[in-house]
């Protein structure tokens, strides 16, 4: 495969993620109507020139809600992945640098955390602090950390055994300097690929939590909330239940394709595997 001829999956991924980002950016300056603008007189209208995707059960413009929802999904995804990266990379580096029982303990905690999906963590946080988008984002972010910790540790162990890392240690560089100068640049591609996949998982988790009422609270618009609000109107207006789910699906598909494509591009050995 030549470098100029990108695989179609990667290109589709770039297009879909680009669409998501530009939609979210657009929502900052313009939506056809205020996304949370309730107008009961115009509720449950079908698609028309003034409302391309119609209006929902409270008369809100569906297109405006979809555009604004992209922003929430993107923001939750970015913050959750950053939390996961910060925690996970720190834990993974500590594990790789210390070895011995600290490494074992950190890895055992990560194994345990795998049994604890973001949703259960969000449920625990919501039960104590009340539901909200901040708690949901923290829960998704913390649940992201173990996978980054495991990746960082195994990649860092490989890098630390190489000559340049040994040379840096012999030259008297401290562990933090070695991690920053030598380990991180070497494991960055692996982390970027995983971050893309975790981004997709975060968007799915946010949609599920907001659907349950444990994520975005009114008047904040989110695709998950739109799906929850649409359910009473399934018989009258199935469009309201179809469009937000489609938006979530396209965003997640784009991120997954981008992640897979990047992994193949960065590591030809893995091409064609899971």
């Amino acid at each position, binding site marked *: 495969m030549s470098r100029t001829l990108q695989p179609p999956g990667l290109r589709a991924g770039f297009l879909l993620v680009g669409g998501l980002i530009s939609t979210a950016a657009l929502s900052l300056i313009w939506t056809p109507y205020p996304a949370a603008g309730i107008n009961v007189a115009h509720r449950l209208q079908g698609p028309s020139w003034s409302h391309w995707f119609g209006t929902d059960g409270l008369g809100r413009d569906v297109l405006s809600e979809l555009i604004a929802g992209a922003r929430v999904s993107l923001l939750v995804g970015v913050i959750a992945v950053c939390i996961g990266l910060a925690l996970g990379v720190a834990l993974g580096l500590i594990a790789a640098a210390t070895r011995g029982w600290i490494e074992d303990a950190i890895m055992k905690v990560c194994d345990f955390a795998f049994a*604890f999906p973001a949703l259960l963590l969000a449920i625990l946080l919501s*039960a104590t602090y009340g539901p909200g988008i901040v708690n949901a984002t923290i829960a998704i972010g913390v649940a992201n950390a173990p996978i980054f910790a495991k990746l960082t540790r195994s990649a860092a162990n490989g890098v630390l055994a190489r000559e340049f890392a040994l040379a840096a240690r012999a030259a008297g560089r401290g562990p933090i300097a070695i991690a920053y100068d030598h380990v991180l640049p070497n494991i960055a591609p692996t982390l970027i690929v995983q971050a893309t996949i975790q981004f997709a998982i975060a968007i799915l988790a946010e949609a599920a939590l907001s659907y349950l009422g444990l994520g975005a609270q009114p008047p904040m618009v989110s695709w998950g909330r739109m799906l929850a609000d649409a359910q009473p109107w399934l018989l009258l207006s199935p469009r309201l239940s179809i469009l937000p789910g489609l938006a979530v699906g396209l965003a997640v598909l784009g991120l997954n394709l981008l992640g897979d494509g990047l992994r193949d591009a960065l590591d030809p050995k893995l091409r064609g595997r899971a």
Partner: protein
Amino acid sequence: MPAYILQRLLILMATLVFASFVIFGVLEILPGDAAQTMLGTSATPESVAALAHTLGLDKPFWARYLDWISGALTGDLGVSYTYGSPIAPLIWERLKVSAPLALIAMALASAIALTMGVYAAERRGKGGDSAVMAASQLGLAIPNFWLGILLVLIFAVWLRIAPSGGFPGWSDPLKALEALALPAVALGVVQGAVLTRVTRSALVEALNEDFLRTARAKGVSKRAALWRHALPNALPPILTIMGLQFANLIAGAVVIENVFVLPGLGRLILQSINNRDVLVVENCVMGLAAFVIALNTAIDLAAAAIDPRLRARES
């Protein structure tokens, strides 16, 4: 093998204790006062103190933790604040819906993963493989609860051949299974997509091994080599991922139960959050975590039984 089993059981115990600490810690130390959470911000200090006393919250942390654990071991989980009834039977009643739902969904996911994964691995690099991989990519992208909503729309609203939600109870098993069918499909298909990819890649790896080439050279047919040699070798990693995925399946079930208004554990948890019934949430989450952790230990043991190499390496 006995040493290995003992080791896994010890790890299981340690993990369960750790899990109980985390859950108890998050729910009972961080906020400072569960009674305040239950009664809301408008409650008087006297009523908060009174509730804290009835719930035993005025005892020190260790005493409360030991009360909870010793109660759990004897089947006494305390009394629900909103329902006014013991929590253990409440959870048991809900499990009669949630457990069958999770099991049917897992069976469905495994069936999808094995058939599709084997099909794709047999044709790796060809059209059939690409089609399966593309379909699984779609399965990964679809939120399971949205698939649930779409299934309701198609089979309950348009075709009218399935109930749109609710649960009639197990007195009529056929009706009960009918009520669980759409939720199980919504859960199982998405999990099946994840597991199909895992099955395919584990099989492709096994197919590249030397012993498989030897088997083929000795005249074993391609199909027999795949089923008799590649699949048993690919099974341990597939089982391990299945176990890990079960946690996600359970989390998915919480959401799906709310789509289909099923009176399972997921709905109980959500209602308890809305009612600020901290004790019920605590016990439900601990129960779910304990189940997932125990299941993963069982799968580790099963994988070791299938694959002696794994046992030798880890003990």
